[in-house]
């Protein structure tokens, strides 16, 4: 069976401990905090990629979404954003995106990013709130290159890890009306 994406819930608990990644913090978050943040603390919602392998289901990757506001002053390098009022700019934070080390290089990271982008666009298109940015914090140079390929740019020198995607041009077709 193919990989399926599901919102993390308690029934996934047995699958969490087997997750492997070169960044211990990404494993630890999944194993110790993701479920609590999603169900009790309401800080972030995590979506997991479940691979129904013949040996049983395995958790192949995950991403977490939360909300964020970006310091307007930090966006001085982005001409479109400097036209905005001097308030914090709201956005959706792609807080984490990780693929199990044993299945890296097979397109799952790209697929998970698409899912995160799709959910973000759906919320922006049809949800009851407005926001301007998709934001992430690249964990290393490889992650930064991955996000750059997908259109995210570094926010500023002050926040070297923080990367943003201005959603306005992408949302243009949905804002236009017949």
């Amino acid at each position, binding site marked *: *069976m*193919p*990989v*399926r*994406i599901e919102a993390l819930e308690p*029934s996934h608990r047995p699958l969490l401990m087997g997750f*492997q990644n*070169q960044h*211990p913090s990404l494993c630890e978050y999944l194993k110790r905090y993701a479920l609590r943040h999603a169900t009790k603390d309401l800080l972030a919602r995590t*979506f997991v*990629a479940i*691979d*129904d*392998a013949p040996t049983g*289901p*395995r958790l*192949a990757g995950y991403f977490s979404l939360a909300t964020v506001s970006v310091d307007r002053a930090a966006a001085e390098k982005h001409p479109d954003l400097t036209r905005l009022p001097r308030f914090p700019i709201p956005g959706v934070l792609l807080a984490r995106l990780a693929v199990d*080390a*044993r*299945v890296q290089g*097979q*397109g*799952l990271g*790209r*697929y998970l*990013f*698409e*899912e995160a*982008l*799709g*959910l973000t*666009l*759906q919320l922006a*298109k049809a949800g009851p709130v407005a926001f301007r940015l998709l934001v992430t914090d690249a964990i290393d140079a490889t992650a930064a290159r991955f996000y*750059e*390929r*997908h*259109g995210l740019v570094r926010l500023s020198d002050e926040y070297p890890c923080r990367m943003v*995607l201005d959603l306005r*041009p*992408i949302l*243009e*077709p*949905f804002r*236009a009306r*017949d």
Partner: protein
Amino acid sequence: MARFQALTNTVLDAELEMLRKRLGLERSQKAEFLREIASLAAWVVQQTEQGREIQARDGRSVEPLVHPALERVRARKARPLGKALELSDREVERLTAVLERPFNPPAGLRAALASLANAGRHPPKLRWKKAVAA
């Protein structure tokens, strides 16, 4: 428990009462009763989520378990989250037009948007390598 009783009607109460007796539980064991039927229901839902069908077999007679709730579980599993971004034909046209205009996304973003607009989009098939040293 009082709230549970208030939400159920007489017929449902009677059905639950019969089920309690068939499970060999006393009237005072309502919490155990609920726990047991929740456990049984959870197993049924889990099997369905994993794509399995539950059947009652008696010789050649085979009766599959059919219930609208299980259909909902199957439908939910069969619907990838990416499908949540449902674009109308007009929106796909507009998106295509925007991609050709001064907004010039990098190839990766362009591919991601095109993929999201593709009804036939599907996740990659994975090959698991052996354990990676920590």
